Protein backbone atom coordinates (compact mmCIF):
# COMPACT_ATOMS: atom_id res chain seq x y z
CA UNK A 1 0.00 0.00 0.00
CA UNK A 2 3.07 2.27 0.00
CA UNK A 3 2.55 3.62 3.48
CA UNK A 4 5.14 5.97 4.89
CA UNK A 5 5.31 5.72 8.67
CA UNK A 6 6.75 8.65 10.64
CA UNK A 7 8.75 7.63 13.69
CA UNK A 8 9.39 10.47 16.14
CA UNK A 9 10.76 8.57 19.16
CA UNK A 10 13.77 6.42 19.77
CA UNK A 11 12.21 4.13 22.33
CA UNK A 12 8.73 3.37 21.03
CA UNK A 13 5.80 2.98 23.41
CA UNK A 14 3.63 1.35 20.73
CA UNK A 15 4.33 -1.85 18.82
CA UNK A 16 2.13 -1.25 15.78
CA UNK A 17 5.07 -0.82 13.44
CA UNK A 18 6.70 -4.10 14.55
CA UNK A 19 3.66 -5.96 13.34
CA UNK A 20 3.24 -4.32 9.96
CA UNK A 21 4.65 -6.05 6.92
CA UNK A 22 7.62 -4.33 5.39
CA UNK A 23 6.95 -4.88 1.69
CA UNK A 24 5.35 -1.57 0.85
CA UNK A 25 6.34 0.25 3.97
CA UNK A 26 8.65 3.21 4.25
CA UNK A 27 9.98 4.77 7.44
CA UNK A 28 10.56 8.48 7.94
CA UNK A 29 12.72 9.30 10.95
CA UNK A 30 11.94 12.67 12.50
CA UNK A 31 12.44 14.28 15.92
CA UNK A 32 14.04 11.76 18.30
CA UNK A 33 13.35 9.09 15.70
CA UNK A 34 16.54 10.21 13.95
CA UNK A 35 18.56 8.41 16.61
CA UNK A 36 17.55 5.16 14.88
CA UNK A 37 19.69 6.23 11.93
CA UNK A 38 22.76 6.83 14.08
CA UNK A 39 22.86 4.90 17.33
CA UNK A 40 24.18 1.38 17.71
CA UNK A 41 22.76 0.43 21.08
CA UNK A 42 24.96 -2.24 22.62
CA UNK A 43 26.82 -2.34 19.30
CA UNK A 44 23.65 -3.26 17.38
CA UNK A 45 21.92 -1.07 14.86
CA UNK A 46 18.21 -0.28 15.20
CA UNK A 47 15.85 -3.01 14.01
CA UNK A 48 13.99 -0.39 11.99
CA UNK A 49 16.88 -0.15 9.53
CA UNK A 50 16.34 -3.75 8.45
CA UNK A 51 12.60 -3.44 8.09
CA UNK A 52 12.48 -1.69 4.73
CA UNK A 53 14.88 -0.24 2.16
CA UNK A 54 12.81 2.98 2.07
CA UNK A 55 14.33 4.96 4.92
CA UNK A 56 14.48 8.73 5.36
CA UNK A 57 15.76 11.03 8.10
CA UNK A 58 15.10 14.73 8.52
CA UNK A 59 18.28 16.82 8.30
CA UNK A 60 17.00 19.62 10.53
CA UNK A 61 16.37 17.15 13.33
CA UNK A 62 19.84 15.64 12.96
CA UNK A 63 21.37 19.12 13.08
CA UNK A 64 19.35 20.09 16.16
CA UNK A 65 20.72 17.08 18.05
CA UNK A 66 24.33 17.58 17.02
CA UNK A 67 24.31 14.52 14.74
CA UNK A 68 26.48 14.85 11.65
CA UNK A 69 25.47 13.47 8.23
CA UNK A 70 28.47 11.12 8.18
CA UNK A 71 27.17 9.41 11.33
CA UNK A 72 23.95 8.44 9.54
CA UNK A 73 23.61 4.86 8.31
CA UNK A 74 24.25 4.66 4.57
CA UNK A 75 20.83 3.16 3.83
CA UNK A 76 19.05 6.21 5.19
CA UNK A 77 18.36 9.08 2.82
CA UNK A 78 18.71 12.43 4.55
CA UNK A 79 16.14 15.01 3.42
CA UNK A 80 15.24 18.48 4.58
CA UNK A 81 11.68 19.76 5.03
CA UNK A 82 11.41 20.67 1.38
CA UNK A 83 12.61 17.21 0.35
CA UNK A 84 10.24 15.63 2.85
CA UNK A 85 7.29 17.29 1.14
CA UNK A 86 8.30 15.54 -2.09
CA UNK A 87 8.73 12.23 -0.26
CA UNK A 88 5.19 12.56 1.12
CA UNK A 89 3.63 13.31 -2.24
CA UNK A 90 5.79 11.22 -4.54
CA UNK A 91 7.16 8.22 -2.69
CA UNK A 92 4.07 7.12 -0.77
CA UNK A 93 0.34 6.75 -1.34
CA UNK A 94 -0.42 7.51 2.27
CA UNK A 95 1.46 8.57 5.36
CA UNK A 96 0.91 8.01 9.07
CA UNK A 97 2.52 9.34 12.24
CA UNK A 98 3.17 6.53 14.67
Amino acid at each position, binding site marked *: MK*LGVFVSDYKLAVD*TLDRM*KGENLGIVLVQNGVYHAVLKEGGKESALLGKTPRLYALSEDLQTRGLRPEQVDKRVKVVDYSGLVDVIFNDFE*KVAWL
Partner: protein
Amino acid sequence: MADVKCAFIVQRPQYKGETSRLAMTHALSYQTVEVLLEDGDTVTPSLCFVGEGILGISKGQNAIAPYGINSSELHAKNCLLVDMDVYVCKEDMERFGITEDQLPDAEDMGAEKKINVVPFAQIEKIMEEAKHVLFF
Protein backbone atom coordinates in the same frame (compact mmCIF):
# COMPACT_ATOMS: atom_id res chain seq x y z
CA MET B 1 -19.53 12.34 -5.56
CA ALA B 2 -17.09 10.24 -3.66
CA ASP B 3 -16.73 8.35 -0.45
CA VAL B 4 -13.38 8.60 1.30
CA LYS B 5 -12.52 5.66 3.52
CA CYS B 6 -10.34 6.33 6.55
CA ALA B 7 -8.75 3.88 8.95
CA PHE B 8 -8.65 5.26 12.50
CA ILE B 9 -6.16 3.07 14.36
CA VAL B 10 -6.19 3.47 18.17
CA GLN B 11 -2.92 2.08 19.48
CA ARG B 12 -2.62 3.90 22.82
CA PRO B 13 -4.60 3.31 26.00
CA GLN B 14 -7.30 5.73 27.10
CA TYR B 15 -7.38 8.41 29.82
CA LYS B 16 -3.75 9.30 30.43
CA GLY B 17 -3.66 11.29 27.23
CA GLU B 18 -6.50 12.57 25.15
CA THR B 19 -5.48 11.24 21.75
CA SER B 20 -7.20 7.87 21.86
CA ARG B 21 -10.44 9.42 23.10
CA LEU B 22 -10.27 12.10 20.42
CA ALA B 23 -9.96 9.30 17.85
CA MET B 24 -13.49 8.28 18.73
CA THR B 25 -15.00 11.76 18.91
CA HIS B 26 -13.43 12.64 15.57
CA ALA B 27 -14.65 9.43 13.95
CA LEU B 28 -18.15 10.18 15.27
CA SER B 29 -18.21 13.46 13.41
CA TYR B 30 -18.51 11.57 10.10
CA GLN B 31 -22.23 11.85 10.84
CA THR B 32 -22.27 15.62 10.36
CA VAL B 33 -19.45 16.23 7.89
CA GLU B 34 -21.90 16.35 4.96
CA VAL B 35 -22.81 19.95 5.84
CA LEU B 36 -19.32 20.91 4.70
CA LEU B 37 -19.13 18.67 1.63
CA GLU B 38 -20.65 18.65 -1.85
CA ASP B 39 -23.85 16.67 -2.29
CA GLY B 40 -23.15 12.95 -2.26
CA ASP B 41 -19.67 13.25 -0.81
CA THR B 42 -19.04 11.24 2.34
CA VAL B 43 -16.29 10.16 4.71
CA THR B 44 -16.42 6.65 6.15
CA PRO B 45 -14.21 5.88 9.13
CA SER B 46 -13.34 2.38 10.29
CA LEU B 47 -12.35 2.43 13.93
CA CYS B 48 -9.72 -0.18 14.85
CA PHE B 49 -8.27 -0.89 18.28
CA VAL B 50 -4.85 -2.53 18.41
CA GLY B 51 -2.15 -3.07 21.05
CA GLU B 52 -2.78 -1.22 24.29
CA GLY B 53 -5.53 0.62 22.47
CA ILE B 54 -7.85 -2.28 23.13
CA LEU B 55 -7.60 -1.82 26.90
CA GLY B 56 -9.55 1.41 27.04
CA ILE B 57 -12.93 0.19 25.81
CA SER B 58 -13.68 -2.51 28.39
CA LYS B 59 -17.12 -2.76 29.94
CA GLY B 60 -17.92 -1.43 33.39
CA GLN B 61 -15.96 1.84 33.30
CA ASN B 62 -16.90 4.72 35.55
CA ALA B 63 -14.98 7.94 34.96
CA ILE B 64 -17.81 10.23 36.01
CA ALA B 65 -17.63 9.41 39.72
CA PRO B 66 -13.89 9.92 40.21
CA TYR B 67 -13.11 12.45 37.49
CA GLY B 68 -16.37 13.93 36.20
CA ILE B 69 -15.76 12.91 32.60
CA ASN B 70 -17.53 10.54 30.25
CA SER B 71 -15.98 7.10 29.99
CA SER B 72 -14.29 5.77 26.88
CA GLU B 73 -16.74 2.88 27.05
CA LEU B 74 -19.56 5.36 26.42
CA HIS B 75 -17.69 6.78 23.44
CA ALA B 76 -17.20 3.31 21.99
CA LYS B 77 -20.92 2.63 22.42
CA ASN B 78 -21.76 5.88 20.69
CA CYS B 79 -19.65 4.76 17.74
CA LEU B 80 -21.72 1.57 17.46
CA LEU B 81 -24.90 3.58 17.82
CA VAL B 82 -24.11 5.61 14.71
CA ASP B 83 -23.40 2.42 12.74
CA MET B 84 -19.66 2.78 12.58
CA ASP B 85 -17.55 -0.29 11.83
CA VAL B 86 -15.53 -1.00 14.96
CA TYR B 87 -12.77 -3.61 15.02
CA VAL B 88 -10.67 -5.00 17.84
CA CYS B 89 -7.50 -6.99 17.24
CA LYS B 90 -7.97 -10.67 18.14
CA GLU B 91 -4.29 -11.35 18.85
CA ASP B 92 -4.19 -8.46 21.32
CA MET B 93 -7.34 -9.71 23.08
CA GLU B 94 -5.58 -13.04 23.58
CA ARG B 95 -2.31 -11.44 24.58
CA PHE B 96 -3.96 -9.36 27.31
CA GLY B 97 -6.39 -12.12 28.30
CA ILE B 98 -9.47 -10.09 27.43
CA THR B 99 -12.57 -12.04 26.47
CA GLU B 100 -15.30 -10.97 24.07
CA ASP B 101 -17.84 -10.61 26.89
CA GLN B 102 -15.67 -7.83 28.34
CA LEU B 103 -16.24 -5.70 25.25
CA PRO B 104 -19.17 -3.32 25.35
CA ASP B 105 -22.15 -3.45 23.06
CA ALA B 106 -24.83 -0.82 22.69
CA GLU B 107 -27.89 -3.01 22.36
CA ASP B 108 -29.52 -1.23 25.29
CA MET B 109 -29.16 2.01 23.33
CA GLY B 110 -30.70 0.40 20.26
CA ALA B 111 -27.53 -0.15 18.26
CA GLU B 112 -27.53 -2.85 15.64
CA LYS B 113 -23.77 -2.96 15.09
CA LYS B 114 -21.46 -4.93 17.32
CA ILE B 115 -17.71 -4.78 17.81
CA ASN B 116 -15.88 -7.08 15.40
CA VAL B 117 -13.00 -9.08 16.82
CA VAL B 118 -10.66 -9.71 13.90
CA PRO B 119 -7.06 -10.84 13.29
CA PHE B 120 -4.43 -8.13 12.83
CA ALA B 121 -4.18 -9.16 9.18
CA GLN B 122 -7.71 -7.90 8.65
CA ILE B 123 -6.86 -4.57 10.26
CA GLU B 124 -3.92 -4.32 7.87
CA LYS B 125 -6.37 -4.94 5.04
CA ILE B 126 -8.58 -2.12 6.31
CA MET B 127 -5.53 0.16 6.30
CA GLU B 128 -4.75 -0.97 2.79
CA GLU B 129 -8.24 -0.29 1.48
CA ALA B 130 -8.48 3.09 3.20
CA LYS B 131 -7.40 6.21 1.38
CA HIS B 132 -5.94 7.58 4.60
CA VAL B 133 -4.57 5.98 7.75
CA LEU B 134 -4.63 7.85 11.05
CA PHE B 135 -2.87 6.52 14.14
CA PHE B 136 -3.96 7.68 17.57
